[in-house]
C-alpha cells in the first residue's frame, strides 16, 4: 500500500493518484482531482535510505553472482582441460582424433561431453560479459583458465625458487615443461572449439535485450537524455 499524501489545499487523500514527471523539472507532480491544486510528491528520507540500501544489495548480489559464475565456469574449463589428458592422449601424446579413431563409445561420449561443455561454458561467460564487447567474455575465460592451469606451476615454482636461493632440497612435484606444453595444447584445442559458444551468446543477448521491459527502459533513458540536453 502506498504511503499517505494529502492535498495541502483541500486535504484530499492523494496516495492512490499516480505522480507524473513534470516535463520541465522532472519532478513527480500530483494534481488534486477535487481542487486541482498541484503538489510535489516527495520521498520520505528513510525510504531513500532503504532504496539505496536495496540498490547496493542488488549490485553486490549481482556482482557476487556474476563473479561466482565466471570463476566457476573458468574452473570447470580448467577441469575439462585437465581431464582431457585422459581422453585425448592415452599414451602421453596429444591426439584430438583419438576418441573418434578408436571408435570407443565411452570415449566418444566423453569427447562430446568435454567439447560440448567447453562450448556451453564459453556461452555462459560471454553472456555474463555481454555488456561489454563480444569477445570480452572469451578473453576473461582465457585469462582465468590460464591462471588456473598454471597456478600449480607458479606456486611450486616459487617454492623451488626459494629452495634454490636458500640452498635446501624441496621434494614437491613441479609440473615439467613438456607437461605444461601438453596442457597448453589441450587448452588451445578446447578454446578453439568453445568459440562456437559465442554465437548463441550473441543471439540470446539480443533476445534478452529486446524484452518489452528493457525496450521501455531504453526508450525512457533516451528521452531523459534528450530532455537533459534540451535543458
Amino acid at each position, binding site marked *: 500500500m502506498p504511503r499517505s499524501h494529502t492535498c*495541502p489545499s483541500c486535504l484530499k487523500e492523494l496516495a492512490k493518484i499516480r505522480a507524473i514527471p513534470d516535463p520541465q523539472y522532472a519532478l513527480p507532480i500530483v494534481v488534486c482531482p477535487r481542487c486541482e491544486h498541484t503538489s510535489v510528491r516527495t520521498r*520520505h528520507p528513510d525510504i531513500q535510505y532503504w532504496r539505496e540500501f536495496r540498490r547496493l544489495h542488488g549490485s553486490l548480489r549481482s556482482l557476487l553472482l556474476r563473479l561466482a559464475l*565466471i570463476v566457476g565456469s573458468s574452473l570447470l574449463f580448467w577441469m575439462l582441460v585437465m581431464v582431457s589428458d585422459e581422453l585425448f592422449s592415452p599414451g602421453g601424446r596429444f591426439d584430438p582424433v583419438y576418441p573418434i579413431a578408436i571408435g570407443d563409445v565411452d570415449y566418444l561420449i566423453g569427447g562430446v561431453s568435454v567439447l560440448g561443455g567447453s562450448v556451453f561454458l564459453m556461452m555462459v561467460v560471454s553472456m555474463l560479459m555481454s555488456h561489454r564487447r563480444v569477445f570480452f567474455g572469451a578473453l576473461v575465460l582465457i585469462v582465468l583458465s590460464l591462471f588456473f592451469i598454471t597456478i600449480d606451476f607458479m606456486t611450486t615454482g616459487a617454492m623451488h625458487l626459494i629452495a634454490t636461493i636458500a640452498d635446501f632440497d624441496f621434494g614437491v612435484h613441479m609440473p615439467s615443461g613438456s607437461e605444461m606444453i601438453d596442457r597448453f595444447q589441450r587448452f588451445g584445442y578446447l578454446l578453439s572449439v568453445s568459440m562456437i559458444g559465442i554465437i548463441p551468446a550473441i543471439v540470446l543477448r539480443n533476445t534478452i535485450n529486446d524484452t518489452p521491459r528493457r525496450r521501455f527502459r531504453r526508450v525512457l533513458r533516451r528521452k531523459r537524455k534528450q530532455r537533459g540536453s534540451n535543458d
Partner: protein
Amino acid sequence: MTEQQQIPEQFDEIRADRACIGCGFNLYAQPVTKEEHYGLAICRCPECGTVAALQQYPTMTHWVNRFRALIAAIWVVVLLAFFVGNTGAISGMTGAACDEGARHMGNLIGQAHQNWEDEKLIKLKAIEAEGASDTQADPTSTQPAAPLDPLAALNAPGTTIITNSNGVTTINGVTMTTTTGNSSGGRWTSITNEWRDAYLDDTIALNGGLWANVNREFLIFLVPMTIIGTLFGIFWSIALLGATRKKALLVPLVACSIGLVIVLAIHAPDRTYVYGQSIAVSMYAPLIAPIMFAYQFLVIAFGIWIGRKVARVVVTLALPPRSRVPLSILWTRDGLPIPSAK
C-alpha cells in the same frame, strides 16, 4: 459557541498507511480534519488521541533507526570476525614456520639427550654389575678387576626394568629415559631438566649455534603467506572505505603485533616443556616470528595498496554501468570519476 463550530469539518479520510507518532497505530481510514486555530490538516489517533500533522513526512516508527543500528552492528561484528580470523591466520602460519624452522635443532637436542641417557644407563648398569661382581669375587684377591662390559652390565641379575605406556623406563626405580616413537628424528624425545641445565647450551654451541641449524624449509611458508596476506589486504582496503589507505595500515599492524605477542607467549621458554622440539621452537620463535610477521605486514600493506584498484577493475569488468552506480563509492572515495558506459 455553537454546536456547528465545535465539531471540526471533515475533508477526507486517510486511505494509505500512516503510523501514529504516539503509539504507532495505523491511521488508515481515519478522518482528516482542519485544525481550528491555524487551519492545519490534522488527524487524531483513535487509540491514544495524539494529533498528527498531515503536511509532513509520515512517521515510519522507530524501527527504521533500529534497523540501521542493527545493520551497523552486524557490519562491525563481521569486521571484528575478519580481524580475529586475520590475526589467527597469520599467527598460525608463523607458528608453523617457527615449528618447521626448529626441526633440525629439535632433532639435535633429542639425539644429544638420547646419547646422554644411553651413557648414563650404561654407567649405571656398569656400576651395578661391578657391585654384583664385588660381592661374588674373592675379597682376598689382589688381581685388578676386569674391564666392564656394558651389555653384560645391562643383563646383570637382580635388575628390574619397567617401561610404562608413556614410554618412561625405570631401572630399579630410577627414571632413565622417556623415548616415545623417535621415528621423527629425536625431536619428540622428552628432555629432563637435569640435562637441560647441564648440557643444552653446550650442545647448541657445539653444533654451531641457532642460525647454523635452522631448517631453511620454513621459508616455504612465504608462499602461502604472500597469497593469504594479499587477499586479506585487499579485503581491508575495500572494507575500510571510511579510512585512508595509510590509516587502514593500522589494522595489519595491530593484527601482526597481537599475533607476535601470541606466538612469543605460546613459545616462551618454559621449564614445563619436555620435548626437544618444543625447547627448540621456544629458542627459534623470537628469531623467526618477527621476520615472518614483518613480511606479512608488508604483504598485507601491498594488498591494501592495490585493493581498491582491484575492486574497481573487477566491478568495471563484471557489472554493467547501471549496476555500478550503488558501488560508486569505490571511485568517489579516492576522488576519481565514475567510469562511463564505454
